[in-house]
């Protein structure tokens, strides 16, 4: 299998794995990690697709990935801060069911 295909496929795999984790796990930290894994999958696809037909790789997707990483870091920071706040408020690390809120 050519590298042009392997990396995008791995990226798609990471994306699906993260989506699965986001849905099945209830622990908030696991959910946050799952979102980050999904993000890494997308970034891997972007970087892998930047190299077309053996020439110089296209720099634009790299710039996009850097922007994407900045966004991911800030989103993760916000999510972690809110998780900690929720933990001090409720003593739980998962989201209560709708009926209880």
């Amino acid at each position, binding site marked *: 299998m050519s590298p042009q295909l392997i990396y995008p496929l791995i990226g798609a795999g990471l*994306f699906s794995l993260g*989506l699965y984790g*986001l849905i099945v796990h209830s622990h*908030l930290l696991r*959910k946050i990690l799952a*979102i980050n894994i*999904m*993000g890494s*999958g*997308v970034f891997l*696809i*972007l970087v892998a*697709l930047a190299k077309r037909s053996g020439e110089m790789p*296209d720099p*634009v*997707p790299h710039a*996009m990935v850097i*922007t*994407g990483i900045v*966004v991911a870091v*800030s*989103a993760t920071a*916000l*999510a972690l801060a*809110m*998780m900690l*706040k*929720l933990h001090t*408020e*409720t003593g739980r690390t998962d*989201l*209560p069911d*709708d009926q209880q*809120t």
Partner: protein
Amino acid sequence: MLSMLAQIPFDAILILLPLGAGMLSFLWPVIARALGLLTTVAVLMSVIGLGWQIQQSGSHIHLLGGWSAPLGIQLYADGLSLLMLAATAIVGFAVSIYATRYFSRRHDEVRFWPVWLLLLGALNALFLAADIFNLYVTLELLGLAAVALTALTGSRQALVGAMRYLFATLLGSLCYLLGVALLYQTYGTVDIALLGELLESSPGVWAALGLITTGLVLKTALFPFHFWLPPAHASAPAPVSAVLSALVVKASFYILLRLWLTLFNPTDDSINNLLGLLGATAVLWGSIQAFRQTRLKLLIAYSTVAQIGYLFLAFPLAAASGGLAWNAVAYLALSHALAKAAMFLTAGNLIHFDGHDRIADLDRVVQRLPVTAWAFALAGVSIMGLPPSGGFIGKWLLLEAALKQGNWGIVTVLVVGGLLAAAYIFKVLGNTFTEALHHHESSTSVPARMEWTAFGLALGAIILGFTATPVLEIINLGSPFSAREISP
């Protein structure tokens, strides 16, 4: 003089001003309130200026730093962007006036202004973006600011609602970004106009279309992806709920509409019909859920779920009637923005006054808060789609498009949805006239400013019922809905 006015880059001001003011108000909380108000006034003026420019010279392209696509970042404005910018500026101005008196804890207000100004800047940037990657960045800015505002009070409900909202919005953005990656891989550009010319039907494009649409539909809270909306919108402070329901869900819908118009020109009916079907389900399900709620803010939030459904009813109609259905959607979006913001602000007034929002325990509201009761009633008229109101014009245009095509399913949904809306609005209105079992003599009074801003927004939604012709003219500046001949 006029030629000088034509040179002012209003579009760049619309983005940079709120962002800069947001940072300043974070650094100097003392001036945050004045700065916030001043910024929203300036944004309102800039939108008027931009509108004047577009009216003079047609749709407007601004190359940031003078770099053209595909290297540089472009700002693009036509009638559709102008409409969304105007809705943002008007609702934003009213909400800012409201917020100067709303917060009882100084602590909350200090945190409100910077994030709200950031949100305002993100909204303006989103409506002006001309490429799909910039749209992603603005979507994320918007999402993070919206989540932070939802969690503002730090109460348990607010945190749980905000957390759910955060996961939904991040998941939506990642799906969208993956779609963008696939499009870029195939065509080597992210410029919407360029993509519109290049796009052809291929499995990659369809995968990208699916991912982008899924992501945006999740963020717009279309049924069955609406699960995150009611807890988030109902647990946020009143001015925040107003902005979230009126503007933030419309932003992702705007992107979907924009991409649909330029990129994925609807030739395949099955996707259009699917979106229409989900919209119809949202109208019915959201209205029924709204009627079943016992708390006012949850009722209004479910009403938003229903009203979003109406926007998606246009997709199956647009293939045949094009402009008419899209005009209806734009009109509905604008009048819903005003009416729903007014409703959430009145809910905030009632909570401020009585300390709760249980519908059954509303106590002699009409006698004690007449302006608020009036505001709710006027906003309700527009939400129900009774004449004369903006909601009526929007639904009428939609009905006209459906009747022209003999699409009786959509006609039925429009009629039944209107009746259900009347049911839940009158459920609230009925209780504003009655006395509660337990009399509650409130010691706090609602500041006049908070009552009259809600009333002003509701009145705006009614006035839209008389101004259909000029508003539709503005929407069609630069003809955003003209059918382009692309075969995907």
